[in-house]
């Protein structure tokens, strides 16, 4: 069985990002980049499936300019067997990514596709769902447990009310939540070996996908700074303020 994981290059979670002065985008100049943490969980899950003998091959896919090869290499160091980069300089929206991934799936025919539930940069939480719809596959989003048995994936989902368990027919799309697993660190020998693993480069044209976006970004601005608080003098004053100023109680 073959597992395909999608990985995205994003600003490192520890970096404090800033808006560009002209408000056109976030400033990523000289910012440390990393694999989106949810994608890393996806890679880990796929690698564990391989280690437990359930999967034979793990393919890591990333879409973006040449620099996203770094995140594919990291996935290879973590245990993926092969990489695919879909090379494009365009700033892609979830729908275009889903279409490209659909085209990759058509070529690769994986049994399971694992993605992060969202990426920590734009927090869209759309790509996995769109991909499942486009490809006509079952989907299990926000997975906290995935068990594969006889042609099915039993996916435990973290939903608002608690846990929901779905039985999906393979091939299926799964998106990862935080508690699915704890990703390992890639060891130095595996980082070095990853350099020798195969990586194919495809283009949107080769895949026959039109990636033109129908959305335009209007403006990026930092959140308003919180104004300083005050210390109330009595409970009465607090209740009064909650009632009449904040209007959160009546």
């Amino acid at each position, binding site marked *: 069985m073959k597992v395909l994981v999608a990985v995205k290059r994003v600003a490192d979670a520890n970096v404090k990002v800033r808006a560009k002065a002209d408000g056109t985008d976030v400033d990523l100049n000289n910012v*440390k980049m990393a694999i989106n943490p949810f994608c890393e969980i996806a890679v880990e899950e796929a690698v564990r499936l391989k280690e437990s003998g359930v999967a034979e091959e793990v393919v890591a896919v990333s879409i973006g300019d040449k620099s996203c090869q770094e995140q594919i290499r*990291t996935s290879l*160091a973590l245990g993926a067997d092969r990489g695919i980069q879909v090379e494009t300089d365009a700033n892609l929206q979830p729908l275009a990514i889903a279409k490209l991934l659909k085209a990759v799936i058509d070529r690769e025919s994986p049994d399971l596709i694992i993605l992060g539930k969202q990426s920590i940069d734009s927090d869209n939480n759309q790509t996995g769902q769109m991909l499942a719809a486009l490809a006509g596959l079952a989907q299990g989003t926000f997975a906290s447990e995935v068990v594969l048995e006889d042609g099915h994936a039993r996916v435990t989902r973290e939903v608002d009310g608690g846990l929901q368990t779905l039985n999906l027919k393979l091939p299926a799309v799964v998106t990862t939540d935080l508690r699915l697993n704890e990703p390992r*660190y890639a*060891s*130095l020998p595996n*980082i*070095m070996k990853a*350099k020798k693993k195969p990586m194919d480069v495809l283009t949107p044209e080769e895949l026959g996908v039109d990636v033109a976006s129908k959305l335009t970004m209007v403006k990026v601005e930092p959140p308003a700074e919180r104004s300083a608080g005050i210390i109330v003098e009595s409970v009465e004053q607090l209740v009064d303020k909650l009632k009449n100023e904040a209007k959160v109680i009546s």
Partner: protein
Amino acid sequence: MALDFDSARLPNPNLTSDHEAWRTQLRRFVDAEIVPFAEEWDEAGHIPIELWPKAADVGLLGMGYPEEYGGIMDGIDSWHSWIVNEELARVGVGGVAASLMVHGIGLPPVINWGTEQMKAEVAPPVLAGIRHIALGITEPGGGSDVAQLQTIALRDGDEYVVNGSKTFITGGMRANWVSTAVRTGGPGAGGVSMLLIPTHLDGFSRTQLDRKQGWWASDTATLYFDNVRVPAANLIGVENRGFNVIMTNFNSERMGMASAMEALGRVCLEEAVVWARDRNTFGKRLADHQVIRHKIAQMKQRLNATQAYIRACYEAVEAGTANPGDIALLKVQASETMEFCAREAMQVLGGMGYMRGNRVERIYREVRVNAIGGGSEEIMRDLATRQYGL
């Protein structure tokens, strides 16, 4: 440009995305397995035995050693080492790195000059983190004047009979083997040999030196040899040529110490800047007082110079043209920089800095072991002038 640990590192065109990948993974390891516990280990006076196999798994112990012994060498260069020294220094608990990585001074004599049999026996368990090795040069009678060491190894049939003592030996309490400098010949450098001494042999004993200014997490020992009979096959390299082994070993130890010291200075800068931005005195941020701004600038200036010097030396190491004099003075440059940064950061932190439980306080206490161990500042300057033919 900013002044945190990463931003205060000058760009280094030698670093590739592979090096950065190593830094990223190593930092994850350090942040998960070391940082949360390091202070506790320091107070406890040792690091847990399980840390070595974990460090082996991530590739930390095997880096730079041959694959056949469980190491990894292919594609590994000085820049990987620099990253290791930086990332371990970033923890700000010097004893952890000193203890965890002590094989970095104990094992190279075996790897570079030992017999095949010796390497096959010692290197795999050490690199797997399940056995330990230390380096024994310094004696109670003196450490700087290595050529005058007094531990005697007398040949008797196919054994050496060893008598004497070593002190300040990092990892000495745990070591299964000690790469030991002994006198096999006449006086002076020409009578020194290196001998691999297993610590289970009769006549070997040790005591812990557990009340130190710093490096608490690292076990330091005095070793005693009382008619210890060591197989002659344990000779490392050629008899009476041990001085060369020791001196070669020192070069890589000094590069490692220098790059760690610069990073420790950078930790001080980072902590001082965070505090100076946050703390208000006389109606404005500490960072807005000119005197404090200049302290920060001087720290960064010296760190910049040290980084550039480290890079120049590592480039020479990579090119095979390293000069021991330059490396000796680099060690001095780095310890003076660390000392300056620790001092100035302590001043910026004020009373807060004097309290236990912050990186600057500990680094301040760990300046001297770096300025003395591995060759003191005085000895480094002397060595350099001799290397330069003065």
